[in-house]
């Protein structure tokens, strides 16, 4: 017997599938055919079945069913917890870029207006400089500076939201490496399912794509860390053990991501042992 979207065909006799549009869509999304005993669909069987009047009717019914089924699949994919977090963290990184670019430009502009000004030997943080630019300048330059300050506020609020969301979507990964960095890993991997399928070695170099590819193409040394470098355990570790710590951390992150995908709740016993193992790696070799 062959099952098609409009009904079942058995030895040339066709039994129409009876059901409301929702049931037909359910059927379309659940049936599949084994390819060894595959008999291609013949559209005129649907007419014999009494489901469709003619070719035009067949195509328009099939199209309606397929469109609704696809809409449902999209809605399901988008309602997964990680879909919005992905956009949030990408927006955050984009905002960082914008702030840096605009701040650089505003500072250059300010230098033209104040030829005797220089940042050398003065250690002015960027936000203090922007503040003084806003206060001392009228017109477009002042309002650009004000805009930078406003978007910086947005950035702070968004960062908080990202990390809170990451704690619920990625409880274990966040516990190991912090919400923000966990969210960035998620964004690089492309989703929770994708992240949970990555091996530790891939997680270790997520975000170091250029270095990794130049390593594979040429004989340049391979990158030791990608995004995970942003975590204090890596960038505070002594240079000679950084590679070791990031390897161990990445291995534990791979396990944590799988816990996050399959369990979705925090696993204290795993976290304790993982934290200890990572700390031990830094300590043992550091001495």
């Amino acid at each position, binding site marked *: 017997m062959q*099952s098609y979207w409009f009904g079942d065909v058995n030895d040339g006799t066709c039994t129409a599938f009876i059901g409301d549009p929702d049931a037909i869509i359910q059927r379309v999304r659940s049936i599949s055919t*084994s*390819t060894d005993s*595959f008999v*291609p669909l013949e559209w005129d069987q649907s007419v014999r079945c009494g489901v469709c009047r003619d070719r035009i009717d067949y*195509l328009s019914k099939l199209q309606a069913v*397929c*469109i609704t*089924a696809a809409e449902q699949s999209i809605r399901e994919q988008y309602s997964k917890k990680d879909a919005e977090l992905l956009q949030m963290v990408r927006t955050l990184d984009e905002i960082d870029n914008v702030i840096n670019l605009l701040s650089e430009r505003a500072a250059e502009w300010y230098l033209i207006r104040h030829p005797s000004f220089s940042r050398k030997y003065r250690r002015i943080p960027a936000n203090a400089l922007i503040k003084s630019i806003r206060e001392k300048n009228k017109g477009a330059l002042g309002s650009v500076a004000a805009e930078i300050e406003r978007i910086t506020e947005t950035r702070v609020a968004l960062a908080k939201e990202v990390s809170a969301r990451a704690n619920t979507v990625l409880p274990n990964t966040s516990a190991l490496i912090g919400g923000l960095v966990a969210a960035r890993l998620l964004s690089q991997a492309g989703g929770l399912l994708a992240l949970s399928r990555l091996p530790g070695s891939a997680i270790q170099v997520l975000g170091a794509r250029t270095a990794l*590819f130049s390593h594979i193409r040429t004989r340049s040394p391979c990158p030791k860390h990608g995004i995970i470098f942003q975590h204090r355990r890596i960038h505070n570790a002594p240079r000679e053990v950084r590679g070791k710590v990031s390897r161990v951390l990445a291995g534990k992150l791979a396990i944590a991501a799988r816990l996050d995908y399959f369990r979705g709740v925090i696993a204290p016993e795993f976290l304790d042992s993982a934290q200890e193992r990572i700390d031990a790696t830094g300590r043992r070799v550091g001495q």
Partner: protein
Amino acid sequence: MIWIGDVLVSKGMGGVYNERMLGGARVWDPVRSKLSALYYTGNGVELTPHMRVLYLGAANGTTVSHVADYVEVVYAVEFAPRPMQDLLEVSRRRRNIIPVMADAAHPEQYAPLVESVDLLYQDVAQPEQAGIALRNCSFLKTGGILILMLKTRSVDFKRKPAEVFQETIDILTTGGLIVQQSVWLSPYHTDHAALVCVKG
């Protein structure tokens, strides 16, 4: 195929992706569409009004909309939700596009929806492109045509494109297809080749 001077066009409702119009027809840009590039660089395959097409890797429905201008029906398979959103919008305005949200590597998922086709067109960024094409050949009528847009860099970025190209031809030939045309799509698309095969 319809050419106005040396510009490839298709006849249908415009405005899908702000494409240029020429004499009331939609300009089919070889830089944006690999299938169009095939008509510029090689002979291509004549699309006729009675053709039924299975299109794997439909993406945003840009090329799909041009194919649909020429043929009877296009079964457009796409896996990712984001491009599917756009493809659905195109499908709602064209009666002959059937959007199928499924993985082209698993034809059993959409076998209950798709009939036998005259043309199988594949443009997917997967390592195992030849295998996916062969698996989908069960939808192809005898004498039907496969157009495989080979993304050599997706197969293996470490190997030379020419090597991947030759290997893919061998796999398709072993799989029972006769390779009729094999062209590189440069200068329109780098490291992309088109393979036109016939199912014997």
